[in-house]
């Protein structure tokens, strides 16, 4: 070691070794950082299934039938359509999935108070927010945005 530090070649060797080690450390650190930064999003992938379910509910007229019954306070229909929507959405979610859903009247920019499904549930930590637009209710122009919060319990 003493001989290395005494002659010029040795000094050059030591300097190069230091530089090489430093560069390697920097590169390994960079690699680690990049790996962390490039982790796939932890956001669950179930939003595709939830969206498809909303689409199916819309095509079959359940989304507008529900808001029609809510706005016109048709109690039996509210229960019936709420049941169908709830069942369909839970079917699209994993077993420990939960959701809150409500309608926003886009003409007045206000929430439709009785449109809530699962209103009392408290959303978890990692919440996925989904929106769905409908423009027709029972043949009338009635734009509503359906807002959904979806999360996994535990």
């Amino acid at each position, binding site marked *: 070691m003493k001989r290395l530090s005494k002659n010029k*070649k*040795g000094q050059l*060797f030591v300097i*190069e*070794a230091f530089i*090489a080690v430093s*560069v*390697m450390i920097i*590169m*390994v650190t*960079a*690699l680690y950082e*990049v*790996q962390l*930064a*490039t*982790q*796939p*999003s932890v*956001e669950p992938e179930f*939003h*595709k299934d939830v*969206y498809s379910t909303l*689409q199916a509910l*819309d*095509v079959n*007229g359940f989304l507008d039938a529900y808001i029609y019954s809510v706005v016109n306070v048709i109690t039996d229909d509210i229960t019936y359509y709420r049941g169908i929507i709830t069942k369909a959405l839970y079917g699209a979610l994993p077993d420990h999935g939960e959701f809150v859903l409500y309608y926003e009247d*886009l003409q007045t920019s206000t929430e439709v108070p009785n449109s809530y499904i699962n209103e009392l549930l408290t959303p978890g930590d990692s919440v996925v927010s*989904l*929106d*769905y*637009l*409908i*423009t*027709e209710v*029972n*043949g*009338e*122009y009635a*734009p509503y*945005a359906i807002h959904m919060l979806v999360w996994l319990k535990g």
Partner: protein
Amino acid sequence: MIVMTKNLTKNKKGQVFLLLAITILIYLIILSATVYRITQSPYIDPSPNSDQLLNYVDNSISALEELADVSMSQFSLGADRDAVLDIIDNGISDIDAYLDNHNLPSNISYDSLNLVITNSSTSINPVRIKFVAEFTIHINSLDLVYDAIITINSSYFLEYSSIIGNQNYIYIYQEKNDITILVDEAIVSVTPSITVENMGDGSYLADLDTGYEITAVLPHNIILTLNIP
């Protein structure tokens, strides 16, 4: 340089030094290549929620299709062409705003002159209501660039069969983008009042006669009326 290289290769220290230098160089190259490959992987800087953005685009198309149903419903209830164009304009404006709110600045347009909304004669079998329009969607956001021309060609029609026994069948069809299906959820009534049986397959059984009027309330509150001459 040549002298230095010769000296290096001749003595043992030099050989070790050279070997070490080459090894370190190879390590560095491998490491650099790995870092480069990872930074080029699709996970780096992904478009935020690109699937969700596409869902919103998809949703805007379904909302346009619903405008066709609103138009046919209102037209069948007596609204004129101008009223239908107002509905379409309002709808497009709301869909635009909806996309904007999801970071998808959009421009949706259509040629009102080419929009078709017609109701056929109520005394010719079959009776039909029809909507045709072409919408251009242009979205230009940082996350998504989308251009499409969406043609919505939708119609409903009602026809009655010639007499089978002493009963007639009334059929209700929906035709959408060249696909025809039977509509089994209509509420069909006849004036003067007679029994109409929904067969559950898109056909409705009734004992029709000359001068009778058939009225069908279809999904989306679209009304078709046919007078039997």
